[in-house]
């Protein structure tokens, strides 16, 4: 449950535990109180009701996307 959306950190202030994140071109300040790992600008995080709730594992995301591409290519090959 609970809407949550991938966003990219464009500013981060560890002292205030606040980050500015970008969601499809829209920026918003969020709290990073819930993230234990070090954060840095350029990281992708999931945002839920004004909080970053976790970092997104980029390798895993890319792996999925590569997998899907292969799948499509295969199915296209099938139709060819």
């Amino acid at each position, binding site marked *: 449950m609970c809407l*949550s959306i991938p966003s990219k950190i464009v500013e981060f202030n560890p002292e205030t535990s606040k980050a500015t994140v970008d969601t*499809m071109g829209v920026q918003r300040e969020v709290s990073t109180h*819930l993230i234990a790992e070090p954060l840095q600008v350029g990281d992708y995080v999931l945002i839920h*009701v004004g909080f970053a*709730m976790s970092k997104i594992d980029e390798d*895993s995301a890319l792996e*999925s996307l590569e997998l*899907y591409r292969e799948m499509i290519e295969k199915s296209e*090959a099938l139709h060819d």
Partner: protein
Amino acid sequence: MTESKPIEMSLDALYSGFRDPSTIASMIAKINQKAEQLTQPMRVMEVCGGHTHSIMKYGLPQALSNKIQFVHGPGCPVCVMPKERIDHAIALAQQENVILATLGDMIRVPGSRMSLAQARAQGAEVHALYDPMHVIELARDNPHKRVVYFAIGFETTTPMTAVVIEQAIALKLDNLLFHVNHVLVPPAMDAVMADGQANINAFIGPSHVSVVTGAKIYRPAVEQYKTPLVVAGFEPVDVLESLLMLVEQQLDGRAELEIQYRRAVTNEGNTRAQELIDTYLEPRSEFRWRGLGDIPHSALKLRAEWQHLDAENVFAEVLPQTPIDDHKACLCGKILKGLAGPKDCKVFGRGCDPQRPMGSCMVSSEGACNAYYRYGRISEEIAQ
């Protein structure tokens, strides 16, 4: 066909990649092809209301083989909120010099006499927040009033409440109180499955609950009920990939806990969030769910040492304590167990509709009856 370039990480990739129409189409084709081999329909419960929303929005039931049937689960925090808790919120909001704050569309949900939106229209001070941290400002800006945060949501939203409690304590905000209604997914899954009657063959596990809790919380259920569960992302491709994984388990005769939503979910989850929750909150002995009734240890409350922050304690005298039973005709309990469908309910569409819901499943757009009311008949109608 040449070897394509590696995909590069970007926000767009994270969105479009998991919503890509061709990927969706191939995924559907692949599932339908595999589903051919199922000897009988597979009944998949998506526990989480967010998944219900995706499934409906992307029209997946229509596109998928009849061998895949969806059972909409209890995972919508507004739907499962019992009327007596909403009555609490209203009673608090109606107190002189009390401001009630809660999240988003919670204010539309009817209690026994009205919704918070109606209470607001009648003069109660109610704030619909997007961000729980705003209650801190609200309490600061209104030093002569007491602000009650009506905290709702599953495990996803609970850590945010814990942060707010932590801040309120640190800032010594003595006019900010909490009315805690955070509910837990595993006891609800137990409530569905425990009596052995439920007709459910597989679970799509929640996305963002799992980000917080880790996938580990589903292991007992998977083992006890020998029912596979795949923790899935919210995007249509995520849901479809998870379904594919579930069909494969079914065909292989496996009942395992798997994670499709690996880019965000681990086995352990967000341990800082878990610790924060643990510092301020603890399980209640039981909690009443709309549709499922009383479930032991299925919700959280403030720990004893924070009782002075607990609106249920501070305002005990003004809070109505009579539990309100579900309407007798309501079949939500059975629907949630996959034993009945909305059309089996006598009052569906006749007395019970989204404007005046009689049962949990009609309350929000994630409820089974509500979804069926709005979308369910489309295949029949479009077939004309």
